[in-house]
């Protein structure tokens, strides 16, 4: 834990340094606020303009979270099916990889035409960006099960089902969590992007409004908020991982 703070502390100081540099440069060059606001301007907007912003926070958070949960669950189920049924895997895995070459963003307008401006098309977009990292990470985890443990299970007569649920699945938890961390950042991004395409409220909407009225300070406020949200989500997942993954070497 202490090493974590030492490392985290260093990054934090460096980040602070960058912000100060940014502040100083903007002031020295007298860059106009509509082109690039100083961090202090963004901070001021965060307090003064909080009422304008606050209504947009909750919709984005709930959208990202629900999307993440759906996307990860679907991803995990698909991974389990593909791993346990090699025939299905042969057929679908290449297609799955191919499908990732379609940028999800171009699907978004289509989904809106089909499903309207409600929650559903947005959740589909987020789930689509979230599930892939989970599938890949889980499959890798299942495959990388320690061979001597698998050999032991076979020797004592475990069924395939027992080998999967007692060995391969718990063994791959760290892997699944790495996938989950990537998916979490994607989910916030996916939520904001899907809001750009049309929503009543949300950080994405706030950003579009700010952009069209040249309130760059608000755009930056939104960006900082998105970063913060991603970091918090990452931290929460890390915490759950610590609680669930036991008896292994502490990873970084």
């Amino acid at each position, binding site marked *: 834990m202490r090493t974590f703070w030492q490392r985290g502390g260093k990054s934090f100081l460096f980040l602070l340094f960058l912000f100060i540099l940014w502040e100083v440069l903007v002031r020295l060059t007298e860059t106009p606020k509509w082109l690039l606001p100083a961090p202090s301007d963004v901070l001021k907007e965060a307090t003064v303009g909080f009422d304008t912003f606050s209504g947009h926070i909750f919709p984005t958070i709930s959208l990202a979270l629900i999307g993440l949960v759906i996307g990860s669950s679907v991803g995990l189920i698909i991974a389990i099916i593909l791993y346990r049924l090699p025939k299905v895997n042969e057929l679908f895995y290449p297609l799955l990889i191919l499908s990732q070459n379609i940028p999800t963003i171009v699907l978004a307008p289509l989904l809106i035409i089909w499903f309207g401006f409600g929650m559903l098309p947005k959740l589909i977009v987020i789930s689509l960006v979230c599930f892939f990292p989970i599938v890949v990470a889980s499959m890798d985890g299942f495959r990388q099960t320690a061979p*001597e*443990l698998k*050999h*032991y299970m*076979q*020797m*004592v*007569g*475990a*069924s395939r089902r*027992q080998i999967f649920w*007692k*060995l391969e699945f*718990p*063994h791959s*938890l760290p892997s699944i969590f790495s996938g989950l961390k990537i998916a979490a950042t994607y989910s916030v991004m996916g939520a904001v992007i899907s809001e750009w395409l049309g929503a009543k409220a949300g950080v994405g909407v706030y950003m579009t409004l700010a952009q069209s009225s040249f309130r760059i300070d608000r755009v930056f406020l939104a960006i900082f908020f998105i970063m913060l949200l991603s970091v918090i989500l990452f931290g929460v997942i890390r915490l759950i991982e610590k609680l669930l*993954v*036991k*008896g*292994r*070497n502490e990873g970084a």
Partner: protein
Amino acid sequence: MLLNINKLNKTFGDLHVLKDINLTVNEGEFVAILGPSGSGKSTLFQLIGGNQIPDQGEIFLNDELINGKKGFISYMPQQPSLFPWRTVLENVVLAAELKGKPNYEEAKQWLAKVGLADFENSYPIELSGGMKQRVSFIRALLSKQNLLCLDEPFSALDEFTRLKMQKWLLSVWEENRKSILFITHSIEEAIFLADRIYILSKRPAEIKAEIKVPFSRPRDERLLESSEFFTLKQEIFQYIREEITE
């Protein structure tokens, strides 16, 4: 007769690994298999465990043919192979768990008996090599099969721990007297522990000799220094020398 192996042959592609192996283990007997590295000792266990199917020959356990059938033996591998996310207690019941509801009370009693009571809720990462092997052995014991197959369980340990573990195994076995089939490539270990020793040749492995170990039980490490022990060791070494010259 508990285990009866009859004319067993196994090849992997062009590699003839086991050739006409005949072998028996009686009820309550401690039998060691001594053979050079790569001769096919682990393969023999794979066949008994049903994880591989023999090309020819039969394996009978209690007069039942078990060629290719799994789940009839208790097994302790060369590496402890404990599950890192399970506590010691959860690990020792693993093999029993595959067959039904494990008996946690009995598991705890065994852990206490082998001095691991304080480690019930520890994870394997917190244990020393010798402790892990004890856990692995209790896990095999608790699975309640009649035949216990141990594949070089102590070969990864240092000399001091190994002798300690051999004595420990003997003391546990005196109380329990389960039939044991024990693979090793240490002559001393085989003599010290077993009632009977099969010596395997190099690949393709045949039974080169079968030796009865005449020493009475319970045994302790004074046996290791006796002249009878030394004579038997010499005798066995003759067979092994034939395998390494040629």
